[in-house]
């Protein structure tokens, strides 16, 4: 069984893919069949993931891969393959479990939607594509699945296609991520050209193994940065993060899937997967490409948490919190904390899915109201949602001890502290901790505390099919703590391919008190600012100009609209204009000259050649007429003329001789 799964790991994405196709083409409009197929597919994938996970436990850092030929062109073969290692196995577990919860939740959330079955087909496809990214042992296969993830997100963000905003958001997501993918694509081409293979692991011959890295030399930096472009797009990093908040137009379970288990996780995962390209030639764990990763991560994390302070849409706040957490993960990867980054990614998967589904439950209970100012006092009507949401907030804010998000954030802060280039990211990330606690407190107060708003009177708790997944995710986010603490850092050791040591003395380190203090500060300050908040945000009252900048996301959308997009549009119109008037102009000029020549030759024909010919014939005829008059038929005249001629000839002859 154990070795069987290692060589058949492809089944894990194949099962949800098959489920998706079955739903699309077989189950028809049967809702129960569709939901059952999707959920059974996910359960099977989860069971297989557990088997795969167990198979990696025997030997630390074990890595099994299976490569095969995709196609042969000329004399070259292009090989792809699947890999199972701790990184992949951990991701598989998280993706399948979180997806399963989201699928179950969707039954309740989407039940009355007329395209219910199609929704489940897309969800299954989304999960399959993401699972494919995780187990790909080839950068090309990863890219293939990566693009399919993009397609699935496009279909799901624009699921309510009759809404123009949803369609626009889907388009924006697809195009923005594709901009990053162009860089990624060039990186693949470069890497392929230099190393001759795109397999990650191939018994020492893979593109991220030592032999290939040595042959790359200095170009490794550029390749890494190009690949990072792809991650910037997918994982919503500055400056390509603008699609992610708009993606909130999709149904809430989709947001949960995009923000937790799939899509945005892909970018962070990609950097972790090809990490040797980034860290090649590192001195003290620092390379130019990693420094770029850190910088982008820091900018993203801080910018997003500031913007989150000034949003009123319950989902958009969460969206910006995702952007900021992804920035944090990138920082972690950049400073060398690969395991920490991945641990946070996985913990984040659970609690962010929890938060989004909680938000979905609130939206569902509030009859599709998303503005937090219209909520309030929901703690009484929606107790399960309230408690699970609170757990999610504790995780996100990084409260240590009982919440996995706290411990993983701790790991990241440790990693940033020891970075050799600068301590600035460390302090900025500490500031980020305060900001996170602050905006989550704000959201929490608006939604659950205070008095019930007029709109929230009608609110009701969601059905069990929706609350059970919340409880499951909340439980996961707490239970995960067992393997995350420094006392028994099993997860970190697992990812690093080591054996974990138990040492209770390591549990409490100075850092934990610092971050605890910062989180508490965030909560307390948040409470003081927001506990009496009404329709107008207190920050908006105190600092209207600043609030406006944050509310409008630093006007980045507007900036892009008026620069990049405007230029591209002008370029398109210019290209069209050139076609019509310059390139086609030459053609028409040629045609015109041809016509002119035609007119000229016609004129020449008529006035010169034709008229000349006419003249010639007329003259000939006239001459003939004149001559014919001489031919009178009288012999005397002829003989006379002949005689004169004879005399004339004789005279000439005599004169000449």
């Amino acid at each position, binding site marked *: 069984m154990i070795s069987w799964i290692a060589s058949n790991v492809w089944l894990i994405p194949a099962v949800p893919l098959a489920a998706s196709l079955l739903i699309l083409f077989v189950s028809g409009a049967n809702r129960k069949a569709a939901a059952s197929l999707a959920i059974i597919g996910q359960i099977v994938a989860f069971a297989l993931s557990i088997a795969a996970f167990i198979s990696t436990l025997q030997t630390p850092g074990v890595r099994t891969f299976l490569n095969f030929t995709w196609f042969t062109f000329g004399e070259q073969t292009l090989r792809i393959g699947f890999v199972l290692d701790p990184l992949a196995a951990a991701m598989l577990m998280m993706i399948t479990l979180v997806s399963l919860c989201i699928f179950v939740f969707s039954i309740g959330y989407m039940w009355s939607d007329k395209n219910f079955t199609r929704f489940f087909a897309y969800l299954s496809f989304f999960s399959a594509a993401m699972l494919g990214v995780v187990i790909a042992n080839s950068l090309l296969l990863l890219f293939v699945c990566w693009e399919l993830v993009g397609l699935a997100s496009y279909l799901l963000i624009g699921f309510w296609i009759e809404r123009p905003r949803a*369609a626009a958001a889907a388009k924006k997501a697809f195009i923005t991520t594709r901009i990053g993918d162009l860089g990624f694509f060039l990186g693949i081409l470069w890497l392929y*050209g230099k190393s001759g293979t795109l397999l990650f692991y191939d018994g020492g011959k893979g593109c991220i193994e030592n032999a290939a890295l040595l042959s790359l030399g200095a170009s490794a930096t550029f390749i890494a940065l190009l690949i990072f472009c792809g991650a910037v797009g997918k994982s919503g990093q500055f400056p390509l993060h603008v699609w992610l908040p708009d993606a909130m137009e999709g149904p809430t379970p989709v947001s949960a899937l995009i923000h937790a288990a799939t899509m945005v996780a892909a970018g962070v995962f990609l950097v972790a997967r090809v990490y040797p390209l980034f860290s090649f030639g590192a001195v003290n764990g620092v390379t130019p490409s990693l420094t770029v990763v850190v910088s982008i991560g820091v900018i993203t994390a801080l910018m997003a948490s500031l913007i989150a302070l000034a949003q009123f849409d319950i989902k958009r706040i969460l969206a910006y919190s995702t952007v900021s957490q992804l920035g944090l993960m990138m920082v972690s990867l950049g400073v060398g904390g690969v395991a920490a980054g991945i641990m946070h990614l996985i913990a984040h998967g659970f609690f962010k899915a929890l938060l989004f589904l909680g938000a979905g439950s609130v939206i569902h209970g509030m009859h599709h109201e998303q503005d937090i100012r219209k909520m309030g006092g929901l703690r009484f009507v929606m107790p399960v949602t309230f408690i699970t949401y609170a757990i999610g907030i504790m995780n996100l804010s990084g409260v240590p001890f009982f919440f996995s998000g706290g411990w993983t954030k701790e790991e990241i802060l440790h990693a940033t502290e020891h970075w050799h280039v600068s301590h600035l990211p460390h302090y900025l990330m500490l500031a980020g901790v305060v900001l996170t606690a602050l905006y989550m407190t704000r959201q929490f107060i608006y939604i659950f505390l205070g008095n019930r708003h007029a709109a929230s009177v009608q609110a009701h708790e969601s059905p069990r099919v929706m609350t059970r997944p919340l409880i499951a995710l909340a439980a996961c986010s707490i239970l995960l703590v067992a393997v995350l603490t420094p006392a028994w850092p099993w997860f970190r050791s697992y990812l690093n391919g080591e054996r974990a040591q138990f040492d209770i003395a390591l549990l409490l380190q100075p850092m934990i008190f610092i971050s605890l203090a910062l989180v508490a500060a965030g909560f307390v300050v948040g409470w003081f600012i927001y506990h009496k908040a009404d329709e107008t945000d207190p920050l908006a009252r105190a600092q209207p100009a600043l609030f406006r900048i944050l509310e409008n996301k630093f006007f980045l959308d507007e900036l892009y609209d008026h620069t990049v997009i405007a230029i591209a549009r002008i370029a398109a119109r210019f290209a*069209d204009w050139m076609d019509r008037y310059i390139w086609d102009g030459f053609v028409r000029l040629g045609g015109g000259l041809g016509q002119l020549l035609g007119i000229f030759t016609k004129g020449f024909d008529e006035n010169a050649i034709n008229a000349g010919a006419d003249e010639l014939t007329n003259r000939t005829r006239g001459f003939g007429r004149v001559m014919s008059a001489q031919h009178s038929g009288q012999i005397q005249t002829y003989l006379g003329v002949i005689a004169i001629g004879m005399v004339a000839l004789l005279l000439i002859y005599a004169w000449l001789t």
Partner: protein
Amino acid sequence: MAHLITILIVVPLLGALFVGSARANAARGIALFFNILTATIALVLWRHFDTAATGLQFVERSVWIPSIGAEYLVGIDGLSLLLILLTSLIFPFALFAQRMDRGFCAILLVMQSALYGTFTAQNFILWFLFYEMSLIPGFLLIKIWGGENRDRAATKFFLYTFLGSVAMLLSFLGIYFVRGTFDFAELASLGKTGLLHGNIAWFAFAGIFLGLAVKVPLFPFHTWLPDAYESAPTGAAMVLTGVLSKMGVYGFVRLLLPLFPAEIKILGPWLLGLAVCSIVFASLSAWAQSDLKRMVAYLSINHLGYCMLGLFAITATTALPAADMQAALSGVFMQIFNHGITAAALFYYVGLLEERRGLRGIDNFGGLMQRTPLLCGWMSVAMFSSLGLPGLNGFIGEFLIFKGSFAVAASFTAVAVLGLLFAAIVFMRMMQSLFSGPLAENCSEFPDLLRSEKLVIVPVTLLMFALGIAPQIVFNIFNTTVIHMARLFA
């Protein structure tokens, strides 16, 4: 097996005769019957084609007009076979696309015969005969059955292409006077050491280049194409983009590249520049269009630009590793085949929309997803295939072309990938305004896909998936040819 190629060329002509004398409503059925015959012959050719052998197969050679070096010489290698299969696939597809009367069917069949001839002829005179023979049906189809502005568009199409052909003919006459042969294989072997010397080589090069660049078309000789495709009836547009546009690329591979290696190396960066301009400007222009047919037409130029990029990249530089050479060539051949299928399918879908709406402006539709989900869904597959989504057929060719060209012309390739972005923008825009939003009033009576339409669409779409996932079957056709040509160009 003897004379199989000749039979392949003759069968559509016979079909044209039969169609011409048949009852009007039986015309399309007869044409389809003859297409079953041609498809069978093509499959028999494929079945008996030795994929491991280099050189021409099924060669038929007989004396024709020896005094001018004209010979009846036909034969196929992997590239020819690929194009025969493509032709046999696209024509029945086009026959299904619209109602057509006797004349239309007959002219299509004549064109089909001419295309088989073009892709199999191995002597310039014979090739040129077929090449021109395909042009006139194209002209007639646009001129007689075309839409608005058909006279202008047909004339432009004919004159522009014909001008190129004349230039090409003159060049070849020049070559013949110096070298005394029209045989492609002999000319190619002479090309290695320099076919012609001095200024005359440049004249000959320019003539052939112009003829083929117009045909492909390559920027900036492309302006006839949007007009022609826009005015052409759906069935004609499908064969124009699906097969006819491949004649130019085929000509580059067979004639220009092997005959003038030195000239191409000298002009290398300029030619690459033209290919990149084709890719980028055509996709930008597509963005600025509002007529669906023109959009698809411009994207056709964009996609053929990738072929030209690959071909120029491998010939414009020296000492290219065999791996990259083979990648680019395989990519070009793959792209030829896949673009044929995908672009024809796109025109087919535009035809369906136009049939239902009577108009084909991008703003004449809206919210179709609510009314015709099947049409939207299947059409999206063709769109995603065209924008190069992995898993569908468009991706593999483009990936290999870029892989090959990146190795020698990294900066050109880096600019060219912008075409991928702009193509995506065009399709996103198309999907947004056609499928999404509230249902437009004048689309509210649209029927979804009819059974007869599904019968056409499903196999074509399955083919897109099959080629995207398991392309080996197509690579097998031309792998040996690729190796052989890569050595020729090296």
